[in-house]
């Protein structure tokens, strides 16, 4: 089972099925798992399309401007120029940008989890009531409105309200994702038997307590899925922070990278060091928790 990890129930039958893709080992059973080496080689070569740009970013980040020169940029630098990171750290005011991004991301994730799960729970448990069905349709219909359509009035509105800061971005990240997240949650809440709640209610629990103590913990797998989507969407968002946050000092990491564009003589070693520092947090989190992340995203995909 080490190989097949995406946590879907149908996964257990995988070893049996896999043989058929190659067409080489027709009659091998579960134990006769024969590796298709040609395909493995092909996949390894194909994965270079992902690895090469990453290698290139690292190599560029470690070069001095002289080493970049007019070459392809693909050669590994010798000696390596670690000072680029320190210089980029200062040039982008990295700690402030990082904290701003972290602020937006953390509160967007928490807000998305809390709001979407509450709304989904209330709607799923009162499906026979017109108000809640209507709310559901209302939220879903917003998914048909493309973001460019509301952005101009929205920016004016948030500026008027003094929300032209990272806090305002949090608001919109939560509200912007609520349709999709509620959709994910509702299907999950429906699969939780009502009897679980009824026994708690007989013991005198209020609806809030039922939600907090029983429902929310049971939603854990979906919380992971929604949390991952909210995290990636928030951390990497460029459009909303760029348009909303008025104070350049409070800009998020992706927007700060614009600093290296449009200057007459771009210092590429500095720029790439900065790109790498902007990519590193999500990359490290992903590699450390990849099994967990992928199973969470997969759950979102099956819905």
């Amino acid at each position, binding site marked *: 089972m080490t190989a097949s990890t995406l946590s879907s129930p149908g996964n257990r039958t995988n070893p049996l099925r896999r043989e058929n893709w190659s067409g080489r080992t027709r009659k091998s059973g579960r134990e006769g798992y024969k590796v298709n080496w040609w*395909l493995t080689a092909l996949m390894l070569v194909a994965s270079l399309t*992902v690895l090469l740009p990453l290698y290139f970013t690292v190599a560029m980040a470690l070069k001095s401007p002289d080493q970049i020169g007019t070459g392809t940029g693909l050669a590994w630098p010798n000696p390596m120029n670690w000072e680029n990171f320190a210089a980029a750290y200062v040039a982008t005011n990295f700690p402030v940008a990082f904290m701003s991004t972290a602020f937006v991301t953390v509160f967007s994730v928490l807000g998305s989890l809390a709001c979407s799960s509450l709304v989904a729970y209330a709607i799923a448990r009162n499906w026979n009531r017109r108000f809640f069905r209507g709310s559901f349709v209302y939220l879903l219909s917003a998914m048909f409105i493309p973001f460019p359509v509301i952005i101009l009035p929205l920016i004016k509105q948030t500026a008027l309200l003094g929300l032209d800061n990272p806090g305002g971005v949090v608001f919109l990240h939560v509200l912007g994702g*609520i349709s999709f997240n509620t959709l994910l949650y509702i299907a999950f809440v429906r699969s939780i038997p009502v009897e679980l709640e009824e026994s708690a209610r007989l013991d005198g629990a209020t609806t809030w307590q039922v939600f907090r103590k029983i429902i929310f913990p049971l939603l854990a797998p979906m919380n992971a899925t929604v949390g991952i989507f909210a995290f990636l969407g928030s951390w990497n968002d460029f459009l909303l922070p760029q348009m909303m946050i008025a104070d350049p000092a409070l800009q998020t990491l992706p927007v700060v990278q614009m600093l290296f564009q449009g200057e007459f003589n771009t210092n590429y070693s500095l720029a790439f060091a900065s790109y790498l520092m902007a990519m590193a947090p999500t990359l490290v989190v992903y590699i450390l928790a990849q099994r967990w992340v992928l199973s969470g995203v997969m759950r979102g995909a099956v819905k």
Partner: protein
Amino acid sequence: MTTTSEMAQVSQPAASTVPPKATSRAIRSKNRIDPTYYWMVVPVLALFAFFITLPALVGVFFSLTNYAGYGDWKFIGLSNYVNIFKDPAILQSYIFTFVFALTTTVVVNIVALAIALGLNAKIKWRTGIRTVFFIPMVLSALVVSFVFNYLFSNTLPVLADRFGVTPLATSILANENLAWLAIVLVTVWQAAPGATIIYLAGLQSVPAEVYEAADLDGAGSFRQFLSLTLPLILGYLVINVILGFKGFLGTYEIIVGLTGGGPGMATQSVAMRIFSGFTGGDYSYQMANAVIYFLITLLISVIQLRLIQRRGVSL
């Protein structure tokens, strides 16, 4: 209270024909909803209406004015809309956006399906290879495009020069006819993992017995793919096409990072044009553009939903 309960008890025996008060009261109390549920939904709905629906309505309103984004304005009826249909720059941005979105949707789905089939097959180091393929999903599209920007405008020309491939010796980002292909390429790089995940979910939902039966019938692996796998994961393909196409229509960050809409206006998407209304002094004009964009995407969504429903019937 006592009187009503007594009355209820009295009327109970006669309950066979007329529904007694007590029973209807019991039904009503069971039907009564805990107001907590409203507290869970209403504040969020109110915020949603205020921050998502209201701006949409305000936008439609201003599309009927000559508001520049500041200062005075007055109603000018539908003349913004009329002017948009005469504007070659707007038309050009729609053509670019749709050609781009269509091409990208096709390429992303082919690439993603190929990767998903590969990952689902009997390969060595599956976990590691899968980890690598999904990396683009977690990276910022803007930063990724900056990296590719350098590759396209510096690395590729140097390599092309070295190997004597003259058409590529100048940056393709500066080429009016090729720049959009660079955007397609980076978008595919970035979007393929998301589609791959959906295809993987689809492939794992196909029961193994189906293939065993096909094996017994002597169907080759390509034949199995065409006659079994593809029809069985058609639903997932539809999801990918719909989600992908809608997303690619709104492409923004990757264009900003690669060409900034250039050279000239060759790669300016509809979304970019609309955003330009924020600084360009043609706020109301771009709002009219946004309304038209909304109607077009709505039409596409309706058509897609119809297609899904028809497919659901035929399957």
